[in-house]
């Protein structure tokens, strides 16, 4: 059966995402930055294993429209949300590396926030017990993603306020912010437009698109963190005329 244009595009985005996930892992390993970014490395590795391997395997085995794939998809989505929450905690730890007192406070705040999300979701579970997967899992993911988005924004503000000069961390935070904001918007849109076909198509493209954007920003952060150009590459005087010649 020939592919439709939108299916082909969706596959393109998906495979580009897998390629970038592998690229992030390889960049982390080859540059030796994995020591500083262990949490991030584990999160991306889980994305490769669950999203790149396990989900397609379940989809092929049971079928994309099967109940098993539906359950597996949303459960792994919760796993990703939890993983992302831990990544944010790791970023907070790095931002507070010089401020022990602040880290103690932030740690308590993070635990409190997680307990609140769990409490709110449990309340939701008692209300939607009969529609566990239809309502609870989606709502839990949405709440957790939105909480991560709020925490990430707090972290961004904290980086600005404390004037922490860590461009790599700044870009990593922006990357994860793009992913959370997109994902939270998609889930909210899904909630608002329950059976709208147009919205469903939009969400199908938006969610992997946001992941792709996050991975691209991370690749840039890991490989090309804004830094001073090596002075060895520049030979003063020698190429000055050339600059003007080429520019002309």
């Amino acid at each position, binding site marked *: 059966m020939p592919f439709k244009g939108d299916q082909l595009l969706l596959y393109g985005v998906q495979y580009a995402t897998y390629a970038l996930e592998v690229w992030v892992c390889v960049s982390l390993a080859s540059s030796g930055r994995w020591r500083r970014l262990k949490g991030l490395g584990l999160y991306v590795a889980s994305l490769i294993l669950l999203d790149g391997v396990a989900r397609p395997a379940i989809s092929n085995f049971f079928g994309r429209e099967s109940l098993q794939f539906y359950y597996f998809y949303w459960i792994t989505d919760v796993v990703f949300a939890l993983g992302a929450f831990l990544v944010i905690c790791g970023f907070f730890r790095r931002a507070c590396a010089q401020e022990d007192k602040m880290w103690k406070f932030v740690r308590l705040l993070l635990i409190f926030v997680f307990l609140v999300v769990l409490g709110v979701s449990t309340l939701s579970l008692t209300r939607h017990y009969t529609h566990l997967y239809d309502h609870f899992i989606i709502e839990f993911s949405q709440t957790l993603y939105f909480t991560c988005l709020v925490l990430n924004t707090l972290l961004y503000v904290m980086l600005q306020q404390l004037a922490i000069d860590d461009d790599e961390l700044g870009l990593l935070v922006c990357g994860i912010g793009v992913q959370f904001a997109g994902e*939270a*918007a998609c889930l909210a849109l899904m909630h608002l437009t329950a059976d709208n076909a147009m919205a469903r198509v939009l969400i199908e493209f938006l969610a992997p698109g946001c992941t792709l954007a996050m991975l691209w920003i991370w690749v840039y952060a890991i490989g090309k963190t804004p830094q001073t150009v090596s002075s060895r590459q520049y030979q003063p005087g020698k190429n000055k005329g050339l600059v003007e010649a080429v*520019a002309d």
Partner: protein
Amino acid sequence: MFMAALILMVSTGLFFFYIQAVCQKILRRQFSQEFFQSIVNANRLEFPSVRKAIEDLGAPVEYPRLLLTLKCDYLALTYLLKNAANVNQRYSYEERLLIVYFKVVFAGLVMCHWLKLRETPTALKLTLILEYFANVVGERVNTVRFGNLTASDYLLSL
């Protein structure tokens, strides 16, 4: 329903905020020297004078001239980005992102004028993007090597 609508609005706003923050982070890149000066002199670009006028007088030159100046400089620099000492003859991903960012900020400048808001911060942002482009071109021309050839050897061999 209300919460979902609120989350949708806030998330969409934050999505664009983070994209803007990424652009600002890319623009913060420090170059080892002011490469843009040679490019500005060679191509008689006008954005440094626009910035100087804004910084000294607190207001840009008259609006039609400002638009034309920034647009012309943008066209010249994007051409150089693609063609000057660029082996692949295409923009990198960050350059593409900044080109889109420039267009959005440029549209913002036009909107500011229509709504009679202050144009100077937006105009300064545009000059900052142009300076980055000029720095990238200058740096590329200064540092690029084609195999064992220096940039000048390469140009002589064409």
